[in-house]
């Protein structure tokens, strides 16, 4: 794969990223995960990370979100059109938080439930922290949850007691409610039924249509076929193969 040093139009440029885990509790055992990871993502594409499980797809997603540290390399994020890219890999916590607030959204595999907060507020929260009026944020949250067929009776309940599929729909709504230019999706449809899967496919297409760049992991073949515009095979970056 040949990549230019810096691609002007890319919203996300990953360069020479390597990641390993050092397990101090096991006498400093080093577990290499990936190395020489490099790719670009452009507005309006849905790039799918592919490869067998355990190869480091989720780790790459987490590094791009700043949730995992990188050993070396850079992760250049362009905050907006025409703006200088910022290196999330070498940036401090505040840069990561700033990019998460305005640029990079993330839908994880599991909802990390906050005790006692109603589903509607869990979904509305990203908007509220961006300064949207709470009532308006709730309206938009309710709209998304309706679209994902979450029973209205659940809106006012905390998601901790919801089923896996219900939790995941709350999680998706929370991730999709903002207009981040980059969206990271880690198997968002894993525990959904066919009808809701189709809703999510529709939502992803709308995001792409409005120029959002999506980087995702989809084990679900029909979803992948429906939304992917490009695949990146992660096996090529695996550090364990070389090890």
């Amino acid at each position: 794969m040949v990549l230019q040093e810096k691609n002007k139009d890319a919203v996300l440029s990953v360069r020479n990223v390597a990641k390993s885990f050092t397990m101090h509790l096991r006498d400093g055992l080093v577990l290499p995960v990936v190395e020489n990871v490099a790719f670009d993502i452009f507005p309006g594409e849905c790039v799918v990370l592919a490869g067998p499980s355990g190869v480091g797809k989720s780790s790459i997603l987490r590094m791009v979100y700043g949730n995992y540290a990188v050993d070396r390399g850079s992760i250049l994020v362009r905050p907006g059109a025409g703006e200088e890219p910022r290196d999330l890999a070498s940036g401090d916590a505040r840069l990561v938080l700033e990019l998460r607030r305005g640029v990079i959204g993330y839908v994880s595999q599991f909802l990390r439930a906050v005790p006692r907060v109603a589903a509607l507020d869990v979904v509305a929260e990203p908007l509220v922290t961006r300064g949207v009026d709470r009532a308006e944020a709730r309206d938009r949250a309710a709209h998304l949850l309706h679209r994902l067929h979450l029973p209205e009776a659940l809106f006012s309940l905390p998601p901790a007691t919801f089923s896996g599929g219900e939790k995941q729909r709350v999680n998706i709504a929370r991730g999709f409610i903002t207009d981040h230019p980059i969206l990271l999706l880690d198997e968002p449809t894993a525990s959904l039924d066919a009808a809701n899967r189709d809703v999510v496919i529709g939502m992803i297409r709308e995001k792409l249509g409005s120029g959002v760049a999506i980087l995702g992991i989809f084990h679900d073949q029909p979803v992948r076929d429906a939304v992917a515009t490009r695949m990146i095979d992660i096996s090529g970056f695996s550090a364990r193969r070389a090890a």
Partner: protein
Amino acid sequence: MSDPILSVRDLERRYASFIGCTKVSFDVWPGEVVAIVGESGSGKTTLLNCISGRLERSSGSIRYRMRDNRFPDLAELSEAERRFLMRTDWGFVHQSPAEGLRMRVSAGANVGERLMAVGERHYGRIRETASEWLQRVEISPDRIDDQPVAFSGGMRQRLQIARNLVTHPRLIFMDEPTGGLDVSVQAKVLDLLRGLVTDMSLAVVIVTHDLAVARLLSQRIIVMKNGRIVETGLTDRVLDDPRHAYTQLLVASIPES
């Protein structure tokens, strides 16, 4: 926005030859929650007491951004200025509510005291504000004339929070705010704190040994061991990808939920 509200450099506190904390440097920005975690004796409470002006430091600097944008070392302030800061611009939430409340004074007066301390002299307004704050911390305004001795642990802690926030401070110190509470009560207090911190864009330095509390409330985390910072960074990164041996041990010690 781009200037820290609190800046700590090379802070050290010794108890004779014993080190309470040393070589501690960090910044806190407005609207940010920073958690200090570590086991008992790691120096986290010593650190909190030093930066909140409750304990004298041995060396190092602690600067605070005043409302007029001055950035003095706390040691440069007169005692009057320091105490004024403590009851207006700062808050301190103790683990034990009895330390932070007047147990034999009504809930309304507990909340109203800071208002009266800054010159409010209208009983009706004080009472109205106190009543609003009781509701905000989910205490029925009917209880406004009851003394905290008649309150449950969770209510006392929520009252302590209201008492601290009534003057709209900018920086709050918290020492294990949910430490003495039952798990179900803890969740309510945490949820309340989380909402208030966001709504009021408070800067918070919170000491806790509970990593779940740190994850729920803080954006950044400082891990301490033997009086020193061993690891610091984004809270979810430090907890999901801990690099220091001690942090890995801490994280590995949490039972899976």
